[in-house]
């Protein structure tokens, strides 16, 4: 029971079995699925109607992207470990795992910016052709989502963690939701990587 009487904030609803925030984050992820779905369907339509479509591996650096994928998967794991250590009431382990997640995300963004810089040097801009256009749009929007995740996670690492002492249950729920968002961002990259780089 929070201050203005809204129930099921930290305790799950007896019938539906979920807390408000978990249902809310899943609804948000549903809309994100439709957002990236719209961009993927644009990709498919553009590729189908294009007379010639370059091979991703010819224009893009696949080994670097593979490393990037592994970095993002590792950050997904450290995120779920952070949540698990909260479940084990081990706050210090949580802080280490959360820091690792943020660090890995920054590595991912760094690799991405290196990749972008490399392309801009060779005058491959979004306006060069439709392949680069959809490549920059998809990876750019995904990058923005990664950045958003980093900002939220940093909040939970420093100022947000004060809630741990006041209401551990609610804080664990928040970290779970941040985790769900983060795994979703990783999920999108899991599809982006083969579609853009390997096909």
């Amino acid at each position, binding site marked *: 029971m929070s201050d203005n009487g809204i129930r099921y904030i930290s305790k799950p609803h007896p019938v539906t079995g979920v807390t*408000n925030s978990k*249902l809310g984050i899943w609804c948000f992820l549903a809309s994100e699925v439709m957002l990236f779905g719209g961009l993927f369907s*644009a990709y498919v339509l*553009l590729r189908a109607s294009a007379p010639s479509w370059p091979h991703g591996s010819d224009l893009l650096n696949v080994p670097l992207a593979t490393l990037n994928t592994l970095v993002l998967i590792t950050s997904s794991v450290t995120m779920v470990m952070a949540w698990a250590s909260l479940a084990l009431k081990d706050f210090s382990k949580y802080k280490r795992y959360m820091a690792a997640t943020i660090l890995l995300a920054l590595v991912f963004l760094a690799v991405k910016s290196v990749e972008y810089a490399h392309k801009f040097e060779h005058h491959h801009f979004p306006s060069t052709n*439709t392949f680069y256009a*959809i490549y920059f749009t998809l990876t750019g929007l995904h990058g923005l989502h990664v950045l958003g995740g980093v900002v939220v996670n940093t909040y939970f690492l420093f100022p947000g963690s004060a809630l741990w002492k006041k209401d551990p249950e609610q804080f664990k729920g928040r970290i779970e939701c941040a985790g769900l968002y983060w795994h979703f961002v990783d999920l999108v990259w899991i599809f982006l990587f083969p579609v853009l780089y390997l096909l």
Partner: protein
Amino acid sequence: MSEKQHSHDLPFWRKYIFSLDHKVIGIQYGITGLLFLFFGFCLMMLMRWQLAYPGQPLPVIGNLFSERMMVGGIMLPEFYNQLGAMHGTIMVFLGVVPLAVGGFGNYLVPLQIGAPDMAFPKLNMMSYWVYFLGGVAMIASFFLPEGAAQSGWTSYPPLANIAASGQTVWLIGMVFLITSSLLGSINFIVTIVQLRAEGLSFFRLPFFVWAQFVTSFLLLLAFPPLEAAGVLQLMDRLAGTSFFMPSGLVVAGKALEVSGGGNPLLWQHLFWFLAHPEVYVLILPAMGIVAEVFATNTRKPIYGYKSMVCSVIFLGFMSFIVWAHHMFLTGMSAKMSSFFQITTMIISIPSVILLTALALSLWGGSIRFSTPMLFAIAFLPMFGIGGLTGLPLGLAASDIHLHDTYYVIGHFHYVVAPGTIFALFAGVYHWYPKVTGRKMSEILGKIHFFLSIVLINGVFMPMFILGLAGVSRRLYDQMQFAHAQPTQPLNVFMSVCAWLLGLAQIPFIINIFGSLIWGKKVDNNPWEATTLEWAAPSPPPHGNFDAVPEVYRGPYEYSVPGQKHDFWPQNMAKEN
């Protein structure tokens, strides 16, 4: 310190401007929505001058505009196209949806399900202010050097891609509005699923809450593809990509330096993938309001509550597979147009069921002709005309002649203007006592109703005649076409009706502000209704109910045999 005292010592700006209370946010949405409706109405009244008297200077107001819009009072085509595009955008995205979903939904859903507030109050406040930013962006685009967006509210590329800077501001405004509706819909779904009172099962929910629930799913799942399309168009306009620009374009004699390879139909598909569920977002809350007003004023339960709920859910699913009936003429083959004709015919069935169920709810009732009831009754035939005129547009054969003519404009305005907006008027008159504790004047209300119902038909009925004659839409001056000249006098009639309709809203405006002072004071249940919002005091305090209410029966238990009163509120344990 209980919640009630806590809210009293909030500073003014925390209590009214950046409030977390769903009722204050509902009123904020309501007032902003009504202001934008009025602003969109004024844009239309300007357009009506050019349509009725093409090329003649606008008497007084004409010289207020800058040289780029009106030269010596004579409207320029650029300004006319801006008015057309912004009238559509403002009425749909800034007027009706925020009023129907943001205003009515935010205020009433928590009350009708017995919840103290929405599930995420901060998210609720943020969704209002993101909507507000979107509105500011749309209005600011008028003051750009080359004016606002001018390629229609559908902004089809390549025209939208090569348009002036107003289109970029329109896209940014749209991204804000879409984000606001998205956050709002998450709030609604979680509130309706999680915070229902004890004993309030899904099939005891008032139909208004069902309508808002399905509307929230449409907003949640249909808006993001348009956001994706908006991102693509922003990239086209700012980063020089060519998602929607095919190669080999020659504009004004010069070949366009774009990488080409894009497909303009991609935008149309993504836009209409949203825009058809969007039109159901416009109509479902209106049907919810009409159902509530009907039950209360016929003193009997709604006919076929379960069949209406199933139709609304079926409508929600079907609305996602009909979008291409807006694109019959883009060169699609007979096979594809047949598929979308069939789905369009199928989707007309739940709408007919909903309309028939509402009409049959009158049978056997004891009908009180109060102002909300008058507007709700008028909704039925008006939405009926809107729906019926959708038939010739839904069949590809007749759509060939009628597509993109004034017939289409008559069709969708009948659904939105005398349909949704009349239902919203009914809602304002019906719930004003709950929001302010005072009743609106019946005399002013009836004047407003009888003037509006006559004039609104005067504006939109002739559009079908223009449409059959083949007059294309969005024409700055239809006198240029021989096939459009005979119907030009009708435009004068329509314009006069439109201006008078503007005047007919004055009793409504006087009523809204006047009743705050001289309206009759009422208790918490002036209409003797059964749903939960009438169990809370009017206006309800922060937190709505003292304790979480207990619900014992369905939402519309009126004239139950063997009861003293002819209404049996949901939360009343023993008989009434």
